[in-house]
């Protein structure tokens, strides 16, 4: 029998649990679904997926609001005798009921499981259309299944289905991983990198601030060490390191020890550090005068070698700069750079060339900062300097190749942490990262920014971030920054606010058809490595004929001494990992 017109057999057409009936709403605000007697609001979290079976279309949407309502407003002021369980049971779902608001986002094929393309929803289901929870099959239809182009990142919060990222869309543009400290950004980034790496759709250059990605990372929550990219993909990943002392203490040596020549540092690199080093604009701009005075490639060394106030005063007069500004600039730079052992007068090898060699071979490079990862200016200096030069090469090459053959180079994704320091409104216009974020897609270079303070990033840069992966953010300004320009941001805010502080993230943007809150897949156990490597071995079998897996070790290219294991043991490593 039917008590309120909601019952019957609404689940018959769909796989998921019946929820209720559409009773009103709009496309912009979402349609209102009155819940069936047996559907409790407590079981329907904001952000969960709902399928609504219209007369001629199936709508896939997301719950963006859950409400309690009553047929009679007097129920609020004179509640019934709810101490009587009979009365409570009768009233729940009838006189007092729940509603959810569902924003239709996609149209699914009428026949579940068919291969028809998904289309964006531009209308709403009719009155009394039946809504049900999306089944695992519905979710799989929306997010695809794991294959060459799709990487499984996790499962929706209240489901078992797998959520896959469209890696091709992901690597085409700049992306961001955001979340407050301790929410698992590195953990998540590592997984995303593994996905990109397996897909071979893009090369990666990772500025690994805290040594999380190269050889091994840490899983703070479980207090264990997890494998880095080098352990999983020894043949495809080259580890570059800045901190010789730390790197030498572990079983496998880095492929390249990076040294930076003073001559490589340009005034632009100093300009980027202006905010971080708290240098006045006048002082920072004096680096251009210094370059003119001492000569390109020599100015920094010559400036740092100045001793005594008299010499600085004399120089200030010569180049017409405020003396105290120059003196403070000198002391800041000396304090910061004079004690960095990787800054040398004449580097043993050209690190940029070594990097390019690796990238050209289709390899991926992790630059580990070791102890210098805690030294933000050092991290910024190196990241900016290397990126600037790589950017120049990619730009030149892309322009030449496009002109000559009409083909493009392998895309490159550059991963930076503490991104707001490179991309703050004051710096973004000058830093190479700002340029890349704004326009380098056409030169096949994109960014993957990892940051805990997205509000510190220039809004213009944020608007170019195509796929955003957000762990929990508390600060309203950070949430605003992440949500700016996103449709349906109000509903996404409530989803974001409801995330747990670890292993959960909201993903929205290019790489997913609709925003999705996911429980991130496990990483760090033997099983998790196995499941990742199964996909990798499947892909490598399919692509072996066309791949560019290097046959030489990274270091041997440059003639750098290398651990025998690093090259000879690779095949064995792979065999062992791939089972």
């Amino acid at each position: 029998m039917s008590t309120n017109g909601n019952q019957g057999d609404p689940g018959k057409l769909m796989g998921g649990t019946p929820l209720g009936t559409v009773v009103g709403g709009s496309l912009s605000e979402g349609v209102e679904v009155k819940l069936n007697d047996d559907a409790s609001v407590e079981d329907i979290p904001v952000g969960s997926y709902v399928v609504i079976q219209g007369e001629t279309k199936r709508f896939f949407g997301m719950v963006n609001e859950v409400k309690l309502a009553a047929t009679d407003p007097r129920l609020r002021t004179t509640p019934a005798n709810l101490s009587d369980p009979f009365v409570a049971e009768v009233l729940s779902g009838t006189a007092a009921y729940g509603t959810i608001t569902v924003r239709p986002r996609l149209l699914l094929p009428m026949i579940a499981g068919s291969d028809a393309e998904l289309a964006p929803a531009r209308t709403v289901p009719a009155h009394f259309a039946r809504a049900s929870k999306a089944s695992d099959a519905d979710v799989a239809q929306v997010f695809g299944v794991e294959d060459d182009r799709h990487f499984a990142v996790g499962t929706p919060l209240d489901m078992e289905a797998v959520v896959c990222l469209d890696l091709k869309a992901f690597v085409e543009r700049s992306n961001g991983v955001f979340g407050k400290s301790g929410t698992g950004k590195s953990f998540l980034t590592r997984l995303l990198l593994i996905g990109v790496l397996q897909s071979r759709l893009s090369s990666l250059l990772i500025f690994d601030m805290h040594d999380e990605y190269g050889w091994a990372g840490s899983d703070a929550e479980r207090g264990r060490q997890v494998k880095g990219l080098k352990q999983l993909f020894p043949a495809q990943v080259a580890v570059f390191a800045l901190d010789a002392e730390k790197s030498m203490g572990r079983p496998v040596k880095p492929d390249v020890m990076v040294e930076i020549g003073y001559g490589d540092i340009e005034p632009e690199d100093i300009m980027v550090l202006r905010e971080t080093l708290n240098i006045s604009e006048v002082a920072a701009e004096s680096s251009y005068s210094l370059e003119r005075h001492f000569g390109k490639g020599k100015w920094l060394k010559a400036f740092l070698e100045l001793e005594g106030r008299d010499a600085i005063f004399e120089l200030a007069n010569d180049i017409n700069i405020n003396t105290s500004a120059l003196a403070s600039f000198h002391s800041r730079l000396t304090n910061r750079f004079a004690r960095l052992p990787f800054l040398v007068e004449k580097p043993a090898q050209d690190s940029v060339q070594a990097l390019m060699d690796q990238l050209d071979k289709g390899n991926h490079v992790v630059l580990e900062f070791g102890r210098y990862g805690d030294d933000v200016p050092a991290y910024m200096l190196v990241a900016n300097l290397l990126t600037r030069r790589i950017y120049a090469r990619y730009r030149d090459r892309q322009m030449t190749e496009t002109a000559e053959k009409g083909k493009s180079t392998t895309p490159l994704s550059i991963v930076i942490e503490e991104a707001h320091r490179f991309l703050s409104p004051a710096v973004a216009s000058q830093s190479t990262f700002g340029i890349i974020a704004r326009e380098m897609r056409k030169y096949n270079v994109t960014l993957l920014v990892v940051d805990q303070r997205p509000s510190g990033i220039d809004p213009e840069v944020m608007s170019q971030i195509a796929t955003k992966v957000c762990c929990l953010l508390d600060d309203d300004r950070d949430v605003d920054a992440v949500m700016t320009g996103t449709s349906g941001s109000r509903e996404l805010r409530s989803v974001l606010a409801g995330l747990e502080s670890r292993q959960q993230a909201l993903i929205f943007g290019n790489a997913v058809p609709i925003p999705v809150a996911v429980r991130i897949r496990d990483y760090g156990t033997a099983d998790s490595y196995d499941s990742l490597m199964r996909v990798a071995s499947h892909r490598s079998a399919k692509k072996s004929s066309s791949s560019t897996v290097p046959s030489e070790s990274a270091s041997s290219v440059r003639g750098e001494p290398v651990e025998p294991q690093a090259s000879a043991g690779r095949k064995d490593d792979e065999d062992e990992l791939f089972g």
Partner: protein
Amino acid sequence: METTSTGFMAQCYELYGAPALGSLVRVGDPAVYAVVHNVTTAALDLGRRVMARGASEATEEAVYNNNPQIARLLATHIEALVVGHGVGEATKYRLPSSPPRIHAFVYCCDASEVAAFTDGLDYLHLLTSASTPAIDEVIAANLRLAAESHSDPDAFRIRAGKALAAELAGDIARLNAILRGIA
């Protein structure tokens, strides 16, 4: 004794022999079902008032025994609201096209008939929309009695309660009053 499309009045063969308030009765063939909403016992001759008797009697029963004419001069009537009728094997929860006839026999429904009729609860609409006095008490009484004829009385009460909640969606006070009567 008197019939309309929405209800009828019947005289009981025995004084005080009326079915309980709220009980389901059946009349005629094809059956018309109705719920007893009022029971009246009064003088048969409405022009003659009943006199008080038994001032010297010890018990009420002795009054009747010593005045056997009372049973002849008084009569018990029931009034019932039509809530449905049979069409072939089916039961329709709406008014019949014509009311029961005068002198038609009225029967109390047995438990199986009550269970079968109250399996559907659409008749509650006819009851809740009736304007007879104390109809809410009648509804509560009807559902209490009906529950006893179902194999799972609690489940029936909840089902009926929810059906009532849908009928009385805008009148939570009335709904509460009836629910208190069912519980």
